[in-house]
């Protein structure tokens, strides 16, 4: 019973990881790509927790999401890009 449950959770986490990592390279919007990368890293943390390595899982979130993810977003924001304009007319 527990084995099956674990397997289901593992499959769900794997689908999330793979899906988000594909989004990282296919997203047209650089910010969406960066956010998908962050989501991928969170899902990988889920795999670690599932393997009973809670410490690595939490450090993964702390370092990769809290640190590197935020730094990547900060760097993306420093690149020049235009806001999409305010008017409602296309």
């Amino acid at each position, binding site marked *: 019973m527990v084995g099956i449950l674990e397997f289901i959770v593992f499959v769900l986490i794997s689908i999330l990881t793979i899906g988000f990592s594909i989004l990282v390279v296919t997203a047209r*919007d650089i*910010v*969406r790509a960066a*956010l998908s990368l*962050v989501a991928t890293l969170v899902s990988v943390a889920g795999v670690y927790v599932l393997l009973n390595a*809670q*410490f690595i899982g*939490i*450090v993964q*979130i*702390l370092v990769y*999401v*809290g640190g590197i*993810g*935020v*730094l990547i*977003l*900060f760097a993306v*924001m420093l690149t020049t890009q235009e*806001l*999409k*304009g*305010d008017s*409602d007319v296309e």
Partner: protein
Amino acid sequence: MMSIVEFLFNPWVRGILGLALIGIIFFSAVITVWLERKFGADIQSRIGPNRVGGRFGLLQLIADAIKLFTKEDLIPAKADKLLFVMAPIVILGSAFMMIVAIPFGAIVIGDNSYPIAATEFDISVLYLEAVSALSVLGIFMAAYGSNNKYSMLAAFRNIARMIGYEVPLGISIIGIAVMVQSLNIVEIAQAQSPLWFIFVQPIGFAVFFISILADMGRLPFDQNEAEEELVAGWGTEYTGMRWGLGLFAEYIHMILGSCLMVLLYFGGWNLPKFITDIYVIGMFAPIYWFIAKVVVVVMTIIMIRWALPRFRIDQVVDLGWKVLFPLSVLNLLWAVALGLFFGA
């Protein structure tokens, strides 16, 4: 006695306890909003809400909630709709994930204490650190999603501040972990049984207090939604309950930050043994003691909001990197020295 222990360690009971805690925290966030308005009014010699629900405006927040729920739900035409919709969920989710690991007092029977927490694990302090940093992602998503320059500026400031203040916050927590030789928040709270850590590490407490104020975005550090400059910060384009969720997340963050402060520096729920030995009353006294301390901390934070002016963003970043970071390292040295001297 055995049955109580088994009952408390049953995962289903823990799960239901966690859900109940989420409800309780949400409700106490409502109370805190009321307290902020009424107490803030008292500080500034105003009357505050007094029309709905009697002299003390007790029903004001229910009226506000009805207003928020019935407002039109606007999504800007040029917004990134997915990010726009997801952002309040991420912000609130980061606050809810913190609830899991925080023990809200404990039931003490004899020499054993059973913390009121959804889970207990060995590295809960690290977990709280990691999860509380997730809200910055939500704020960034909100800002980018709403495609508004004021929101964008707010997210910039928020990220700059977060990067600067997560470091001293983490190092001041490490100072405590070194002394207790554990990252388990229950053990840290119980280790302060005779002496609170605020007396052992006053510098660490000062750094932690300022950093957590910045972490929560409370007033001397609320540059990310400075009303006079940035309209409403990340929430400029949000209406109705979407904005309300972000507001609630802010207050939940504030309550949980106060709980963390009480657990790390103000001795948690520990009471002398002759009080906890009183039949039945003594069993639950640690919970009341814990809640009383949290209320005092929350009111202090509210007082600070209504008493101090806002810093400029460059002053805030300077303070974080040039003052708090060296001080936190100094405190870490002090903690290690104490640990070596007393053989901890």
